[in-house]
């Protein structure tokens, strides 16, 4: 298949670009790009974790940023207690050890995702979307009400997590490669997972849950497991993001962030392995450079760049469902042509009636 070969070549180019970026950027005297792409890789991890449940499991979670925020707060709270020597809830001392806080961020985010997923997955469709959003909002207000951790203002985390030599998160290059390695490891894990028995059941449940149940699988348990794994990975992404930005606050859990994650997944290509990475990169690069570009055209236009993003999203939904990965496969033009013809688009199962 020409598409598959094009995809392989494109991915090889992408990987080569990502591996070579830091030395080239530093040599060119542009260390900013290393930091920017570190943030992109970390955000791509969050988007990829959402893609696991959204793309492969068909669960449109509108509260995924909450788990990113939880992971971030684990690092932030551990830092606060480490810096002033107090105990968390009078029991646990704080720490800045990466070996403790990074796994802890995953565990806590996973543990929060478990009851939320257990309740949300009792519903489907529109209710599921609204309830995940509502739970994320609940956690958002919870963080605002935490006066011990500065409520609305959040925590300035001025000490990065400590990892053993030779890894040093204070070093741009080192941090970048940590983020890249974590992302690639998660993508590889996702690849193995979706092609395993677990992943097949999950994908089957997306297409026809009733049939999966009729075959004797507890679709609910599989979906819940995927929800928790995605939550834990999002937590890790949050923990890394706090290290990258030096700050964690309720804004991490804002529902716009959850929306942005969905946008990244769809922009890149739903249910594709590398789609979320492309989507995260595209959206964050746009965010970074479009305002300047538009300001060059007309003064003050850049400030309002989102007025263009909104309609672009609608157009993507209407005409380019396969996202950037579709572009990579060379099938975007084809799907556009098919859209313009009156026949139904391919590859989409008919909506199940209630």
């Amino acid at each position, binding site marked *: 298949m020409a598409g598959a070969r094009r995809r392989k070549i494109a991915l090889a180019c992408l990987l080569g670009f990502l591996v070579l970026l830091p030395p080239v950027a530093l040599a060119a005297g542009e260390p900013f790009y290393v930091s920017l792409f570190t943030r992109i890789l970390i955000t791509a991890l969050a988007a990829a974790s959402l893609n696991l449940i959204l793309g492969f499991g068909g669960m*449109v979670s509108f509260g995924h940023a909450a788990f990113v925020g939880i992971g971030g707060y684990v690092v932030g709270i551990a830092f606060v207690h480490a810096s002033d020597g107090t105990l968390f809830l009078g029991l646990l001392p704080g720490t800045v050890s990466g070996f403790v806080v990074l796994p802890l961020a995953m565990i806590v985010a996973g543990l929060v995702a478990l009851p939320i997923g257990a309740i949300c997955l009792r519903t489907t469709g*529109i209710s599921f979307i609204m309830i995940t959003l509502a739970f994320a909002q609940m956690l958002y207000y919870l963080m605002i*009400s935490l006066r011990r951790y500065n409520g609305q203002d959040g925590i300035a985390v001025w000490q990065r997590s400590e990892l053993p030599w030779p890894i040093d998160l204070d070093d741009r290059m080192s941090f970048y490669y940590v983020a890249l390695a974590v992302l690639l490891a998660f993508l590889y894990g996702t690849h193995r997972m979706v092609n395993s028995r677990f992943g097949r059941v999950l994908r089957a449940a997306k297409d026809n849950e009733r049939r999966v149940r009729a075959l004797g699988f507890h679709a609910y348990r599989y979906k819940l497991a995927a929800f928790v794994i995605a939550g834990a990975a999002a937590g890790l992404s949050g923990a890394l993001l706090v290290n990258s930005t030096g700050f964690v606050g309720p804004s991490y859990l804002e529902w716009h962030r959850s929306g942005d994650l969905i946008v990244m997944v769809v922009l890149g290509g739903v249910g594709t392995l590398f789609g979320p990475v492309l989507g995260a990169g595209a959206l964050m690069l746009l965010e970074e450079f479009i305002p300047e570009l538009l300001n060059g055209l007309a003064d003050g236009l850049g400030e309002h760049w989102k007025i263009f*993003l909104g309609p672009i999203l609608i157009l993507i939904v209407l005409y380019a469902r396969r996202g950037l990965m579709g572009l990579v496969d060379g099938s975007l033009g084809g799907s556009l042509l098919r859209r313009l013809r009156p026949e139904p688009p391919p590859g989409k199962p008919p909506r199940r009636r209630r």
Partner: protein
Amino acid sequence: MDPLLLIEQSLNGFQLGVMLFLMAAGLTLVFGVMDMINLAHGSFYMVGAYLTATFVGLFDSFLLAVVLAVPLAALVGVVVELVALRTLYGRDHLDQVLATFGLILFFNELVKIVWGPVPLRLTPPEFLAGQVELIPGAPYPAFRLAVIVVGIAVGAFLWYLIGRTRLGMLIRAGASNREMVTALGVDIARIFTAVFALGAGLAGLAGAMAGPILAVEVGMGEHILILTFVVIVIGGIGSVKGAFVGAVLVGMVDTFGRVLLPTTLKLFLDPSTADGVGASLASMAIYILMAAVLFFRPRGLFPAHG
């Protein structure tokens, strides 16, 4: 507890509930009839508030401003439906979420460009500016009371419209079986547009009335939108009765949670801890309520579909 405070807080809770009902009634019909999730519903609320503030500035009459702003908000809804949402009805929910998320970004920026980023001030009309003593010794802002009255009137109007008119019959039929209604020769697309206009108008009305109570600012629709989602999930998607019960329930729980939880916790904990924990619990109360309802009734209190 002081009975006068109890009455005042009940009225506050009811007023918030009524406001949520205006939002939820339109949204639940859009969900129920079209099986469509519309995140941009909060944008109509925002547009309603901004238009009212503008017309008050122009004509110096709150009533006239509302009378003008509500149909305009409905008109915005119709335009949005015709231009963008109509093509999304048959699509999966992910598409709808994404496209309507795009609409929110668009409307927020549009409002920022037209009215600027500074929140507008909207004062209640002269004749509702004062206090009313419903029960001797318990003065209550007249404007909030008017909101409650308007909300109840809208509730009665919807009950009549949905339960007693031909249009209402078609809406109910469309909600329970879309294909059958189409097969019987009803132009369902026109009903969709009508429902959408109705929902957008009610959201605009809610925005106009929220203006004097809260600030008129960009993003004001999003906070209430999420509360509205909670209301709809509790009430059962597609049910106007459920929307009313859910809205009043959420309004009451939210209001009383904020008043009662910190004071109650002070009985057990030291004051500063009680304040902190109480505030956390109060802001989570309605979501806990929602989780509890869903745990026992995953389809809400009054599921519209069999």
